[in-house]
């Protein structure tokens, strides 16, 4: 369809791309979920599956009892270990309120599966429950990860791709817009932007700050209107014309004739064709541009 109708590789405005990279970094940062502190505090606002708050003292006691009795098999973090299953996803543990279900299992053991009986009290079980329930799972549990860890490619091959098959140097220059680019962005942001052109939101739609698509409209009268495209669908086209005015024109089929140039088109055209290896190599090359 016509929104993809831009052809060829238009020159990329250096300044706007850098601005975009920054915008995207900020946006990405805002969407990072902070790791939940745990500690059995009242569920933080925004948790999808809040549990009733537990007493921090009980959590501390429970951690102690757990480490002595349970962690050898179930892991010090309760996510499973030498033979014992992951307790954080155990229906018995999840559905337990104050240790009552955990207590029953501890008392009886699971002899057929190698779990002995434990001579602990209901209070011990309640503390263990408080501790295990304080360990975040689900959305709040995301671990921070090092964006530098993603560099796996070959910089020499990346250089060859940049100047050769990838045609990157048709728009980008290591002396111009990409000068010191490896020191200005972390490797993950850099690589993400190789794919997205740094012009898309979290869900993939174009950012309002994406470099403008230019549009040339030829009316049936022969009049030509040029400007920056705001939106286009089968029925309407909106643009900001050269004088800065917003204009909306009706569309019907092929009329009026519309020609769109999207400076991001080269990035979009790559999406179906990328080899992961080339993305990785490009990243390895660009992170070296300190």
């Amino acid at each position: 369809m016509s929104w993809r109708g831009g052809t060829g590789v238009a020159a990329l405005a250096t300044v706007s791309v850098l601005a975009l990279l920054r915008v995207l970094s900020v946006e990405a940062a805002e969407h990072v979920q902070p790791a939940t502190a745990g500690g059995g505090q009242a569920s933080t606002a925004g948790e999808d599956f809040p549990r009733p708050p537990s007493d921090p003292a009980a959590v501390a006691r429970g951690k102690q009892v757990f480490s002595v009795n349970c962690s050898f098999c179930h892991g010090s973090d309760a996510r499973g270990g030498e033979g014992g299953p992951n307790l954080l996803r155990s229906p018995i543990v999840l559905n337990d309120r104050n240790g009552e279900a955990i207590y029953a299992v501890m008392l009886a053991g699971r002899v057929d599966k190698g779990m002995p009986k434990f001579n602990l009290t209901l209070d011990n079980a309640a503390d263990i429950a408080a501790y295990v329930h304080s360990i975040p799972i689900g959305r709040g549990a995301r671990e921070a990860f090092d964006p530098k860890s993603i560099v796996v490619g070959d910089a020499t091959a990346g250089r060859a791709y940049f100047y050769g098959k990838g045609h990157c140097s048709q728009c980008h220059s290591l002396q111009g817009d990409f000068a010191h680019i490896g020191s200005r962005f972390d490797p993950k942001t850099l690589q993400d932007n190789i794919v997205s052109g740094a012009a898309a939101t979290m869900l993939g739609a174009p950012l309002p700050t994406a470099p403008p698509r230019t549009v040339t409209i030829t009316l049936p009268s022969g009049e030509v209107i040029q400007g920056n495209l705001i939106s286009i669908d089968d029925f309407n086209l909106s643009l900001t014309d050269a004088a800065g005015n917003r204009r909306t024109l009706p569309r019907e089929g092929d009329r009026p004739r519309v020609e769109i140039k999207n400076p991001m088109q080269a990035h979009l055209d790559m999406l179906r064709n990328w080899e992961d290896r080339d993305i990785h190599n490009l990243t390895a090359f660009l992170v070296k541009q300190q």
Partner: protein
Amino acid sequence: MMFGAFRPARCAVLAVGLLGVFAGTTAAGTAGPAAAAPPGAPATDSWPTYSGDYSGQRFSPLIQINRANVKNLTLAWTARLAGGADSGGGGPFAPPSPPTIVGGEAAEAVVTGGVFSSAAPISVRGAILQVNGVLYVSAPDNAWAVDARTGTVIWHYYWKTKGGTHTANKGMGLYGDWLFMETADDYLVSLDARTGEERWHKETASFSEQFFSEAAPIVIGRHVLVGAGNDSDAAGALRSFDPETGDLQWTLHTVPMKEGDPALGSWPSLDAARHGGGNVWVTGSYDPETHLYIFGTGNPTPAYVPRGRDGDNLYTCTLVAVDVETGKMAWHYQTSPHDTHDWDSAQTPVIVDADFDGKPRKLVLQATRNGHFFVLDRVTGEHLLTSRFAKWGKWVKELNQSGQPIRDPAKDASVGGSLVSLDGWTNWPPPSFNPQTGLFYLRDLESYGLLYYTEKDPRGAMGLGGVARGGQVSLGSIVEAIDYRTGKVVWERSFGPGQGLVGMLGTGMLSTAGGLLFTADSGDNFVAFDARNGTPLWHSRLHGVSNAAETYTLDDRQYVIVAAGDTVYAFYLYE
């Protein structure tokens, strides 16, 4: 044309289906709409189930609105729906609205966070029921009855939630005068359709295990079928409840739960299987001739980090046929063995009686989130056809002898990042099948991004964990019309990327005997397309069209209704 190839089986399905829906009306002693449709006639004057009937076709035989006159479609009314505990009595300058009936187990409604917050603005994303001139509309934690002739709100029910992921309430089920709604905090709530008063609510899944229940219950005979979603590591299940008492009738787990299960060989251990996902979060379709309810299951868990779940992981990402009376599985076909991308196969299966390879067959069609279209024999589960509707298939190593796409592990999440679709190629907004054109209409979502493997723990990850996403960019969506006999796309129409969740999910389909396909473009416009070739014939700019359109006649006028966010729009022909 192909019309002759189709036997009028759909009418039979519909008629029996309606009997199923309303059979209990008499038993329950209430004045039911049993006369709404005589046996054998299609239910053109109501929309009594999730898909309008049991077939999942979302095809209407109505022709009053058609290719020739659809340009005269005009607004009949709008209904703007207010949610929350005190939507009624909005002050002296607000339009009159009924007081809200409040239910729920929480002392105060819990505000959840993220994209799917319980405090998000009202968005009607699911099916709207219409029976006897009343519409029953739902959104997460809210239900309304609306006069189908005027758009006036008759009652509003609000559920104070304990939490749970609030993505989209997909609609309600109806049995006589009893409505059934799932809540994100895992209750099945039954309301009196006449008043909105609560009859009862029952817990149907464990909130502590992080289930969230948003599917549209479907009523078949004296069974209310209910499913739930889960993004942790829990066992998926379809459950049947008694519409009168809410008592559990049967549970069908979609992963092996005990030793000796024939599917256990597709898992490395019983522990892995019991945490293996396969959730049932989209309403299926029902074949009254075989008493089989056919539904799709969700992804295996942990979703992206498959360490610890080697094997095909049955019955995740699988089309399953279950006997409604017994809850026993009749057959299964796995459309995505060992999924590693959170690409559920929960999408609506479509029941069709039509010729295939020159022979009349009882078929079921499904387009799944992994970008493939499947045709099976719905009586036996025999595989007949697989095709790829997605424009990109680098994640597929091969189609095996059973027609199953086998993944290339190189396209799993990787430390350096793997380019794949991060959200899958189609989602739960429903497709449509038009027996007159022989075309299956669906929304192909085309976006790409990088999936990074971030898990350092050698034991693997839980749920959706262990990965990071990045660089997502959308090429927009494509409405595709697939010839079910060949799996080939006959026509397609592309749209630019839409905004927000509506843009990410796309909107569902409605096709009619008037030769029309109703759906949204990238979200702004509600459009009637020529079902034969995709030419747009009419549109209205509603902004953010959020559900699939429906149609029915009232007072001899054909209505088309659709929602955009908190507003329901009704259209009919200008006279």
